[in-house]
C-alpha cells in the first residue's frame, strides 16, 4: 500500500490509470499540472507518474522543481509520454527521473506492474 500521485491532463487516461493502480492496492491521486508541485510537497507520495506535455506547465519543469526541493527530491518519478520524444526523455532522465513509459505502448496492466516494480526497487532498505 503506497501513496501515488498521477499528474496527467488527459482525464480519461488519468482515470484509467487511477483505477488500475488502485486495483493493485495503492492510494492514487490525480492532480493537475498547476497543483502538482504543491500537492507532491504536501502529500509526500511514494511515487509520481508525470506526464510531459501538458497545457500549462511542462512535466519537465515540474520535475526540475521537485528535484530542486530537498523534501521532494527523493520521490521517484516515472515520466509518462505519448510521443517517443527522444530529446525530452533524455532531458527528463538527466533531470533525475527514475524512468519513463510510453503511454501508447503500455497497457494498463503493464503500467501497474511497472509501478509495483519501481516501488519495490526504490523502497528504502528495511532494517
Amino acid at each position, binding site marked *: 500500500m503506497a501513496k501515488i500521485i498521477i499528474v496527467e491532463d*488527459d482525464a*480519461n*487516461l488519468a482515470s*484509467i*490509470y487511477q*483505477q*488500475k493502480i488502485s486495483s493493485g492496492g495503492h492510494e492514487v491521486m490525480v492532480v493537475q499540472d498547476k497543483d502538482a508541485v504543491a500537492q507532491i510537497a504536501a502529500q509526500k507520495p511514494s511515487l509520481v507518474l508525470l506526464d510531459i*506535455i501538458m497545457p500549462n506547465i511542462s512535466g519537465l519543469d515540474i520535475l526540475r522543481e521537485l528535484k530542486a526541493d530537498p523534501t521532494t527530491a527523493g520521490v521517484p518519478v516515472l515520466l509518462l509520454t*505519448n*510521443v*517517443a520524444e*527522444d*530529446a525530452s526523455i*533524455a532531458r527528463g532522465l538527466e533531470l533525475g527521473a527514475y524512468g519513463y513509459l510510453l*503511454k*501508447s*505502448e503500455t*497497457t*494498463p*496492466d503493464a503500467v501497474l506492474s511497472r509501478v509495483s516494480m519501481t516501488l519495490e526497487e526504490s523502497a528504502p532498505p528495511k532494517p
Partner: protein
Amino acid sequence: MELTFGLVIVTVLGTLAGIAGYFLMRREFKRELEINRRKQEELAQKAYEMTVLKEIGDRIGYSLDAAKIVEIISRSLEQLLSYSTVSSMIYDSEEDKIRFKCNVIETVSQQFINDVKVKMLAAFSEMQQVPVVDLDVDESISGTIVDESGKYPLSSFFNLPITISGRVVGLINVASRNSGLYEGDDTEVLYRIAMQASQAVTKLQEVLENEKSRLSQAVESLSDGLVMVNSKYQLILSNRRISHLLQIVENPKLFDIVNALSGSFDIRTKMEEAYAKEGSLPAQEVAIRDKVFQVFCSRVVDNKGGKPMAIVVLFHDITDAKKLERLRQDFMAMMVHELRAPLTSIKSSVAMINSGDVETNKYLKTIGSTSETMLELVGDLLDVAKLEAGKFDVICNAADLSEVVVERVDSFRPIVQEKRLQINVNIEPDLPKGWFDKVRIKQVLNNLLSNAIKYTDVGEITVSVKQQQVGGVPIDILVSVADTGIGIEEDQIEKLFSRFGQLESGRGNAGLKSSGLGLYITRKIVEASDGKIWVESRGEGSGSTFNFTVPLAQGSHKDVSDTHETIGNFTTEKVAQA
C-alpha cells in the same frame, strides 16, 4: 605707206596683247598648281595623321589606364615631328604622387630636363587648378646620355594635355634644344591627335561605365547580401542589402562586416578557404542576431589564367523559410500528439474491460488492434517528419544484440502461432557486443518481423544473428530475417525502401493496412547506426530474406555510453545499399 604703218601697228599691238595674255594665263596656271600642291600636301598630312591616330587607337585597345594611354601617345609622336625629349606627367591618385617620365632622344643637359619638369608642373597645376608642387614627384628618366656641360638649353617646347571624360589625366611634353620649332601646323596636328584619342577613350569609358552601372545596379538590387574582396582581402564591393541584413552602416569597411559577424561566422577564414579551393564552398547556415543566413563563399577566377583574383560571399536570408519549417514541424508534432492521446485512451480503456461475453470480447479486440495500428501509423508519420527535418536521433550504446532479438521474437510468438507458422532463432554463441540504439533497433526488428509474418501464409520465419568476419577479423554483426512468404520481384526491390514504397502485390495479398513507411524508417535507422540493409529474394512466391548489419561495440566506436548522434544531413535521396 599709211596702210603699211597701220598694219604694223595692229601687228605690234596684237603681239603685245598675246604676250600679255600669255603671262596672265601663266600666272593663273601657277596659282592653280600651287593650290593643287597644297591640297595634296594637306591630304598627305591628313592621311598621315589618320595612320598615326589609328595606330594610337590600336595600341590603346581597350585600355582605360591613363598612364598607358599617355605613354602610347608620347611614343607615337616620334613619327610626326622631331624633338630632343618627350615627357609625360600623370597624377597617380592611389599613391597621391605625380609621376614624371622623360625619354631623352638627343643629348641634353640636366638643366634641360629640370626646365621641362618645371614647365610641365606649372601647366599641370594650372589645369588641375590646384598647386601640385607640394606633392611628391616620382621621376624617371630614360634614353640617351645627359650632357653635363649645359651646352644644349631648352629652346622650344609645347605641352599637350590629355583629357578623358572632361578630366585632365596627364600632360605630354615635347621639347627640343633647337629653337623655333613647334609653331603653327605641327602642333595643331598634335592637339588634334590628343583630342581624338581622348575622345575615343572617353567613349569607351562611357560604355564601360554604363556596363558597370548596370552591373552595380544588379548587385544593388540583389535580395542577397554580397561582399567581394580581392586577393589581398581588401573589400572591393558590397551592396546595400548586406548593410541592411547585418544592420551595419552603408558602404561598410571590411572591418564592420567582420565585426558584425564575429562570434557566429569567421568570414576571414572562410574566404581563405574559398580562395584555396576550386568552385564554391558548401553553403553554410549561420545565425546572426535574429536572422538565419545561408552563406555561399566562392572565388572568382581570372578569365585567362584561371588564377583566383577575388572572393565573393553571398548572404541568403532564410529566416522566413526557417520559421515556416519550424511551424511545420511544430504542427506535425502537435498533430501527432493530439492523435496519439485519444488513441492511447481507447487502447487503454479496451484493455481495462474484461467482458465475459465472447462476442463482445471479439469486438473489443478489433477496437484494440485497430487503435494499435493507428498508433503505429501516427508513430511512423512522426518518424518520417523527424527524418525529413534531420531531427531523428539515434543514441548508440554498447549492448547485447542477441538479448534484444530474443525478446522481440518472443513478443511475436503469439501472432506466429495464430497464423500457424514456425519461427526459429539461430544466434551464434559468444556474440560480441554491438553498437546500437536499443529502442531504434527494436523498431527495426519489429518492422522486419511483422513484415515477414504479414507476408507469409505457410512455412517458417528464421531469424539468425552472427558475426561477420573479413580475413579472420570480426567486422560487424549480421542479422537476417528469412521467410517463406510471397517474395519480391527483382525490379521491385529498389522501391521497397523508399517512402510509401509498399508493393502493390504485397498490399493486395496481405489484406493488411499499413503506411508503407516502415521499411523506409528501418533503412534510415540502420544507416544512421552505421549499418547496411539489403534484401534477397528469389522472386515472387519463393520467400525473401532481409539482412542488416550492426557495428561492433569495440573497434571503430568508442565504448562510451550515451553518445549522442544526430543525423544532420539526412536526405531522402540517400539510396539503400542493397
